[in-house]
């Protein structure tokens, strides 16, 4: 300020010269040290937070952070050592409590200390890369308390002992446990894992190994599973109450391994209580439990599935090959349906609708149903029975349910074309005898078959239905136009069947009674008048007749009989007795049918409007048939001889089988030609595979048959063998 020169003004910082007392740091530290002691001695209330904070702040500011930090370490360490001793001194049950108490105290103290030393925490600590006060406090606790020689093992053992006691049914102090475990978790996940979790898992493993061994010796499967489930739930609960959530999957794994996985085979196969028995007895709860438990272990469910499948296949196989059962087809199929229902229910209620179990069920059914070659026939007979009488009075929804179930069985059939043949036969008989319970049910089933197998399958069936309907219209037309002329003669109802639709066998015509001839002729000319170019043939093996008959004492009855029977009976209008030969000549009915017919008229109790001499059961060539004057019946209307579908006799069965085989040949050839046309060249094995694939919705073709068809096609120049590779075939355009 003495010079006259012009100067710029500078403003400088105010330098307050602080005299740093060398003993300053020591003094300040002592204050803080004292404060820490007080804090640990629960005397914190007398301290001034502001003052202490300032002191700490100053120390750091004046570059005494180091001294502060290490002083803190020393002080805290000293305290912790003492604490450690006091915990060690605790006896028995109070060990944990003491530990817990001291831990809580330590945390409180630590909090206060950290607050006081916050400046250091924020500035000195990061720059010098030291641990923060909080973490320091934890580490020191860990080092000097938890890992102290006398405490570490004792702590672990106490904890494990408490858990063991709880497992054996004692009630323990869960809150205390939680706190201690939380302490370990706070100290770091590796502390928790090393100091507690690993040993815990090992000990649990041993525990459950022993326990499961005990149980399995003395319990049956259901009980054992209950126990296992209980233990599992206990452990889960334990974790939720006082362990780290991450331990849950680990401990459950231990239980699953020891109690379930190790004993899986023994449990499943346990005699009189294992899976098979549970299945037999419909033990839904036990099965559900088993499913849930086994789901948790590797291969658990696949083991269950395997055992269930083999049991099912065995039972199924027995069912279909048991000769007793095979006597009644309806019973047979009902039993199959029941079995299916049973397992559906089990899978639904106990196995959680598990798809893979459903698949196992399906494949088993497919396996054993096709073991019996008559399955298709029997299913058709079952349906026949239901549609004739079984579904009488049943509600529409219930009908649908039954039909849907039948369709499920149908799907398992490999030889669907065999079923088709029988079904057609049975349907024809039902329609023609008017014996179907519900038209709607019939049609509903046809629709289901169409959805399943395609139009081809059902087009002829639908033809049958429409023929029936058309016939009704035709009859109306006939009587409308001719009614007046007919007068007193017999009433005629005709069903006109289109040949392609119906499974009719060629029927040699028999001689109809003379009383009928006029009206039959009238119908013929009426029909052909409106439908020129068609040919009508009477199917005398399929009709029925209602006849009013008067017997010896004047009893009148109305007889419902087949056409053949009618022809025979009408002969007795003119005479009281005839020989077999005479009847045969007069009616020209084929011998086998005639014999059956006579048997039904003369040999069945209650229906013997004829009698025969001799009175044997079989019809002999030289028998004499007489009108039975003495016939009596409670009922006015008597039904004799039905055209009910029956289980086929051996020769009939052979015949049907043969026809099915014959029908298959062109189908196989068509498939081969189709495939070769598109592929041009293909080797033998591939042809077999492709053909099988194409035809599998109808039947399973025999590879030998396919080979024969190929050779036949070679003969007819549709295919040729390759010159070089004999396994290769070429399509000849």
């Amino acid at each position: 300020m003495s010079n006259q020169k012009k100067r710029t003004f500078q403003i400088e910082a105010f330098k307050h010269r602080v005299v740093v007392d060398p003993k300053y740091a020591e003094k300040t530290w002592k204050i803080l040290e004292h404060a820490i002691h007080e804090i640990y001695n629960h005397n914190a209330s007398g301290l001034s937070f502001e003052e202490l904070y300032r002191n700490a702040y100053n120390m750091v500011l004046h570059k005494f952070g180091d001294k502060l930090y290490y002083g803190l370490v020393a002080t805290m360490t000293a305290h912790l050592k003492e604490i450690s001793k006091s915990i060690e001194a605790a006896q028995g049950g109070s060990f944990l409590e003491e530990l817990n108490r001291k831990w809580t105290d330590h945390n409180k103290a630590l909090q206060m200390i950290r607050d006081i030393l916050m400046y250091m925490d924020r500035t000195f600590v990061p720059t010098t890369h030291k641990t923060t006060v909080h973490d320091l406090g934890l580490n020191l606790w860990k080092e000097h308390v938890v890992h102290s020689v006398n405490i570490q093992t004792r702590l672990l053992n106490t904890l494990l002992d408490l858990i063991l006691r709880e497992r054996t049914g004692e009630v323990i102090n869960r809150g205390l446990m939680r706190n201690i475990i939380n302490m370990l978790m706070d100290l770091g996940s590796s502390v928790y894992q090393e100091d507690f979790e690993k040993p815990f898992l090992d000990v649990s493993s041993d525990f459950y190994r022993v326990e499961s061994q005990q149980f399995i010796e003395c319990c049956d499967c259901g009980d054992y599973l209950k126990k296992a489930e209980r233990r599992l739930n206990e452990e889960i609960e334990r974790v939720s109450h006082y362990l780290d959530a991450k331990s849950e999957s680990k401990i459950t794994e231990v239980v699953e391994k020891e109690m379930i996985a190790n004993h899986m085979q023994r449990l499943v196969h346990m005699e009189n209580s294992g899976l098979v028995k549970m299945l037999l007895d419909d033990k839904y709860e036990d099965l559900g439990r088993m499913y849930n438990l086994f789901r948790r272990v590797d291969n658990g469910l696949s083991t269950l599935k395997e055992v269930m499948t083999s049991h099912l296949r065995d039972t199924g196989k027995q069912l279909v090959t048991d000769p007793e059962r095979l006597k009644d087809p309806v019973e047979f199929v009902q039993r199959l349906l029941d079995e299916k229902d049973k397992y559906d229910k089990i899978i639904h209620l106990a196995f959680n609708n598990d798809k893979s179990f459903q698949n196992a069920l399906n494949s088993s059914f497919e396996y054993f149903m096709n073991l019996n070659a008559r399955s298709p026939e029997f299913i058709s007979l079952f349906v026949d029975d239901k549609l004739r009488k079984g579904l009488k009075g049943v509600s529409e929804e219930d009908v649908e349910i039954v039909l849907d179930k039948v369709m499920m069985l149908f799907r398992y059939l490999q030889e669907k074309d065999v079923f088709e043949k029988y079904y057609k036969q049975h349907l024809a008989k039902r329609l023609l005898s008017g014996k179907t319970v519900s038209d709607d049910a019939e049609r509903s089933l046809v629709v289901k078959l169409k959805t399943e197998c395609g139009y081809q399958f059902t087009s002829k069936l639908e033809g049958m239905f429409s023929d029936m309907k058309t016939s009704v219209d035709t009859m109306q037309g006939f009587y409308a136009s001719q009614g007046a002329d007919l007068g007193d003669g017999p009433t005629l109802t005709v069903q006109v069947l289109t040949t392609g639709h119906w499974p009719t066998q060629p029927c040699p015509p028999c001689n109809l009674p003379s009383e009928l001839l006029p009206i039959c002729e009238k119908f013929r000319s009426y029909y052909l008048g409106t439908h020129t170019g068609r040919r009508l043939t009477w199917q005398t093996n399929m009709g029925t007749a209602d006849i009013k008959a008067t017997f010896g004492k004047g009893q009148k009855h109305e007889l419902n009989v087949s056409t053949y029977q009618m022809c025979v009976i009408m002969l007795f209008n003119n005479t009281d007795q005839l020989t077999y030969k005479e009847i045969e000549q007069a009616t020209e009915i084929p011998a086998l049918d005639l014999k059956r017919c006579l048997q039904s008229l003369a040999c069945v109790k209650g229906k013997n409007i004829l009698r025969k001499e001799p009175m044997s059961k079989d019809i002999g060539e030289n028998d004499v048939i007489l009108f039975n004057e003495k016939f009596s019946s409670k009922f006015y209307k008597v039904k004799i001889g039905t055209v009910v579908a029956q289980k086929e006799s051996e020769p009939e069965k052979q015949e049907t089988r043969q026809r099915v085989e014959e029908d298959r040949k062109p189908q196989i050839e068509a498939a081969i030609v189709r495939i070769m046309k598109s592929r041009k060249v293909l080797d033998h094995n591939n042809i077999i595979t492709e053909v099988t694939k194409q035809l599998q919705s109808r039947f399973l073709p025999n590879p030998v048959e396919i080979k024969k068809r190929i050779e036949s096609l070679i003969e007819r120049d549709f295919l040729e063998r390759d010159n070089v590779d004999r396994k290769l075939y070429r399509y000849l355009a």
Partner: protein
Amino acid sequence: MNKLGRGHRDKVHQFVAITGASEDVALKALKASEWHLEGAFDVFYSQLQLRSKTDNRRLEELYNRYRDPYADMITADGITYLCNDLMVDPQDIVMLVLSWHMKAATMCEYSKQEFISGLQSLGIDSLEKFRDRIPYMRNELKDEHKFREIYNFSFAWAKEKGQKSLALDTAIGMWQLLFDERKWPLIEHWCQFLQVRHNKAISRDTWSQLLEFVRNVDPQLSNYDSEGAWPYLIDEFVEYLLENCIVQRG
């Protein structure tokens, strides 16, 4: 010729220069001998022996010697006469080979065309030459390739005109003849099997596949492949052999 390599073209030129044959013939001969000139010459000259000029007039004379008096062809009687002249049994298999050369349509008769062209291809225009050729024809059966051709030829030749399949008896006769020549240990069993189990005519496919079976599968059936797309008749034959323990399956 354009497709040949330089070396091959040269060989063809050389061949033509030396033998005076056409390029086509040269190509054929060289190919047959795998492009060895020496070998090609051998082939050429041996064929040359066959294809030596035959005198057409002499052929006519020969034909007329055997032809049927009422029809323009050689029938069974004529053939018997021929066999006599050749000092060969009419059932001798060499007659089959001869028919093959003639590409005869059916057995027991030769048309004029067949007779003449057949003899031409064999280089025969006299009975002497004819007799000389017999051993050569016999030898042809030893060649696998030719045997197969003759075998397959005999199906069409032996069956009835207008039929698709060969009658069983005829087939058995032919098989016995053929497999007497080229030995097959199972021939008797095969014939027995057919008579007992099959009793129907034989299809062409079965006929030709049988030879393959004979050539590829050993009599102990050790390398028989059931997935081998053999005709079902052969599969049945194998079953028959196993069932009757004629062969044990290892």
